[in-house]
C-alpha cells in the first residue's frame, strides 16, 4: 500500500515562493495566472500494511508529528493499493 501526501500552506499564510513563481509565469506570457501556491508531495511506502483505514490513520499521525507543520500547513492523505 502507498500513501500520497499533499502538504499545502494554510490560507492566509504568505507564500513568497509561490508569489515568485506567479511573477515568473506572468513574465513568460501567462497573464491569466491569478495565483500560485507551492506545496509538497510525499509518497510513503507501506508494503506490509493491508488495512487501508489503518494506513491512513498512521500516515495522518506521521503528518502531525513530522511531515507537516500544522502551524502553517494543511495536509491531505490518500491511500492507494
Amino acid at each position, binding site marked *: 500500500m502507498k500513501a500520497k501526501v499533499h502538504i499545502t500552506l494554510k490560507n492566509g*499564510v*504568505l507564500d*513568497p515562493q509561490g508569489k515568485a513563481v506567479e511573477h515568473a509565469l506572468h513574465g513568460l506570457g501567462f497573464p491569466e495566472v491569478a495565483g500560485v501556491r507551492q506545496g509538497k508531495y510525499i509518497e510513503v511506502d507501506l508494503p506490509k500494511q493491508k488495512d487501508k483505514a489503518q494506513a491512513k490513520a498512521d500516515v495522518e499521525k506521521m503528518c502531525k508529528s*513530522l*511531515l507537516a*507543520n500544522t*502551524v*502553517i500547513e494543511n495536509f491531505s492523505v490518500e491511500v492507494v493499493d
Partner: protein
Amino acid sequence: MRAGVIVFPGSNCDRDIAVALEQSTGKPTTMIWHQDTDLPSDLDLIAVPGGFSYGDYLRCGAMAAHSPIMREVKRRADQGTRVLAVCNGFQVITEAGLLPGVLMRNKDLRFICRDVHLKVEDSQSAFTAKYKVGDVIRVPIAHAEGNYFADAEILKELESEGRVAFRYCNDEGEVTDAANPNGSRNNIAGIFNKSRTVLGMMPHPERLADKKLGGNDGRAMFDALVETLA
C-alpha cells in the same frame, strides 16, 4: 555557570557559541552530540546553535527537533534550565514545540548575511539582564528562513505577555518595515517562553561578542547569563 552546546549533523555555529560562552564563563563548554540521550546533571544553560541541521531537509529544524537529545532538552527546559537557541537553533526549538510559531522563508527569498540592529524589548530575563529596554544593539543575521510567523492569537499573547525579546529596527532604534530584513511579523527577531527561561532568536549574538570581531554588543548576553546563573 556550566554550559552545554547541542551538536547536530550540519550545525556550524556550535564552536562559535562555545567560544563566546567560554569567554564569559571562563570554563570549558560541554559539546553534546544529538544522538546522546542524557545531559550532564549540572548544566545551567543549554545552547542550541546555528547551522543547517540535517541539511534543512523537509523544513528547517524539523528533523533535529526529533533527535534523541531533544527529548531531554525539552525535559530540562520544563524544569527551568535556561535554553538559548540561535538561528537554526530557533527553528529547531519552534519545531520541537518549545516556542510558538514558525520561521518561514524570507520575504524576498534570499539568504541574508549582514549586521542588523535590534531593539531590546526586555531586561528581566537571565539573557537580557545586562541590556536596558530600548537599547539598540548590532548583531549579524545569516539565514534564508528567519521570517517569524505566528497566527494573530499567538502574536497577541506574545505581545501582551511581553515575550518579545528583540525586534529588528534601524540604527536609531525605530521599528520600521524598512528595517525588517525578512518579513517577520511585528519585526520579531527573538521571543521567550512564558517563564522567560527559553530564548529563541534569529540573530547571532555569539558572532559579535568580541571586539576583535568588529563589535561586542552580543557579549552582554553571555555575561548576563553568567551573572544570573553562576
